[in-house]
């Protein structure tokens, strides 16, 4: 039963179906779900389906396990489907940000390996860095691997403590983009880490 190749006519039909779906069905679907108290509603038009789903209780949970050694709650991606769970993971990360960062993309230096995190001795919030600058190392069985700044910017809050175990790809240090306006009160949004806030 090989999947049939999509031909041009099929693509055209799909587009037509989508238009009709948007115009006719989705408003009705949304109204119905809002009124019903149901968790999920799905309608169908010419073979297309539109589904609207309310948040389930699993929503707030992380999809992937926290770093090294922490306990996570089971079945994250399994419950929501992997693609969905990834979206939830992004949201969860976003929610832990400071309010001022909401509109901006989040940028952080990430761990190049599994190991023990060691920031540069002089690393401090507000410090100016260039893309590629080494800002920390991760010790992997005695070998130090460099953690580099992914962009030009200013060191923001640290997301892990010195000496902590980190996993591959884990976000370690936030990098803030330089402020376009030179307002001194807005340069260092993350203040929770001790250190001298150098002026950008």
């Amino acid at each position: 039963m090989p999947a049939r190749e999509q031909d041009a006519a099929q693509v055209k039909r799909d587009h037509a179906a989508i238009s009709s779906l948007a115009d006719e069905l989705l408003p009705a679907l949304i109204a119905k779900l809002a009124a019903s108290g149901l968790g999920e509603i799905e309608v169908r038009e010419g073979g297309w389906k539109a589904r609207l789903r309310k948040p389930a209780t699993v929503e707030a949970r992380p999809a992937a396990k926290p770093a090294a050694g922490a306990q996570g709650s089971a079945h994250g991606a399994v419950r929501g489907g992997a693609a969905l769970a990834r979206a939830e993971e992004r949201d969860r990360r976003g929610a832990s940000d400071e309010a001022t960062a909401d509109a901006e993309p989040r940028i952080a230096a990430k761990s190049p390996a599994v190991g023990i995190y060691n920031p540069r001795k002089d690393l401090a919030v507000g410090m100016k860095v260039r893309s590629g600058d080494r800002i920390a190392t991760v010790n992997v069985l005695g070998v130090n691997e460099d953690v580099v700044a992914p962009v030009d910017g200013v060191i923001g809050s640290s997301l892990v403590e010195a000496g902590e175990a980190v996993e591959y790809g884990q976000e370690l240090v936030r990098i803030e983009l330089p402020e376009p306006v030179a307002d001194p009160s807005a340069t260092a949004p993350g203040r929770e880490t001790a250190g001298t806030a150098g002026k950008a």
Partner: protein
Amino acid sequence: MFNKVLIANRGEIAVRILRACRTLGIGAVVAYSEADRDSLAAQIADEAICIGPADARRSYLCAPALISAAMVTGCDAIHPGYGFLSEDEGFADVVRAHDLAFIGPSAEVLERFASKEATRRLLAAHGLRTVPGSAMLRDEAHALAEAERIGYPVLIKPSGGGGGKGMRLVRNAQELESTFKVSRSEAKAAFGDDSLYLEKFLEENRHIEIQVAVDRFGNAVHMFERDCSVQRRHQKIIEETPTPALNEAQRLDLAECALKAVTAAGYENLGTLEFLVDNKGDAYFIEINCRIQVEHAITEMVTGIDMVALQIKIAAGEPLGIAQSDIVATGHAIEFRILAEDPAKDFRPQAGLVGAYLTPGGPGVRMDSHLYPGYEIPTYYDSLLGKLCVWAPDRATAIARGDAALRELLVDGVTTNIELHRAILANQVFLDGKVTTSLLDRVGSAPFVAAGSR
């Protein structure tokens, strides 16, 4: 016993090892690559840690990443599963150097059995019949001379390969000449080792393997055999136990000889001795697998032994705790490898987002898999989606139960070989228990595919 085990593998075997750890009451940490962040093992584990990017060389094949992951999570042992680093003596050695236990044979044992050619000589010295073969080939002239001595057809085999990977069949000197260089460079690229040897090709053979377990105290048992003759290009797709090719006396004789030889040769931990069996019932030792195998589940079904738990216990220095007389094989078990590949399109590997997914149940049915609805199959690794295993008191009932279970198994969103399995089950050669390793390749899958779409 260990406190906590790092599971240094992925897919269904990672889930399987996690289950064994839980049953033993020991902790487990799933090590996963970025591509496996949403994998079932990582999701259901108490702990999981990302060890590197999708590329296996920087994750599942990267010894420092795995060992570092074990150390930062407080593990005291690493289970390598199958494939990847599972038979790598260098890895076993460096694991031990970091005061961690390698769940498998020791580095010394792995090294002793690392070369197929040396292993054949070693076990031949301990009484096993081996397929006539060559020494390591120096050059093309040497290869031609050795092939002449052994007699065509011969297989060119890379010493570093396993599971049929990199093998080539040549039927005469011309073919050998045109293939030799290619094989050498392929072996170099695939295994980092261009050593090749020749082996006589036994046509119409069966693939039968003996499962053994040996602890540190010299206690050794076999768990009978598995017949893995249903293959496609040397890749097993259906396995069963007991083999329909041998009678009771032949089966026991083979198992006992294999156990005696491998124990005398100093083997330790779980292992599998693979044999080719010709149509007279003569068995030729070909290689040993120093790890848990994909098809271990059917041995578990007939013996009731949790083989992964046993492997962990042996690695922890515990005695086997079972004698040969305790091990009774009851009934008949069959494994179907559920693969993401399209039998109608030359078995091309398939990717996809798993849609509806439902596994069969009922008596004697077991599905080991890492699938779930919504799982996106990564394209970086192999095509094994899971293993459907069935048990019944006799072979005919096992076949009927297997067919019923395959009908129930639902994997939407990706093309699989489920229908091919059903077609093979309906094939008279299989029903007669007479499938040889070359059957599928010789006949081609087309008749089966056609039958399967009835």
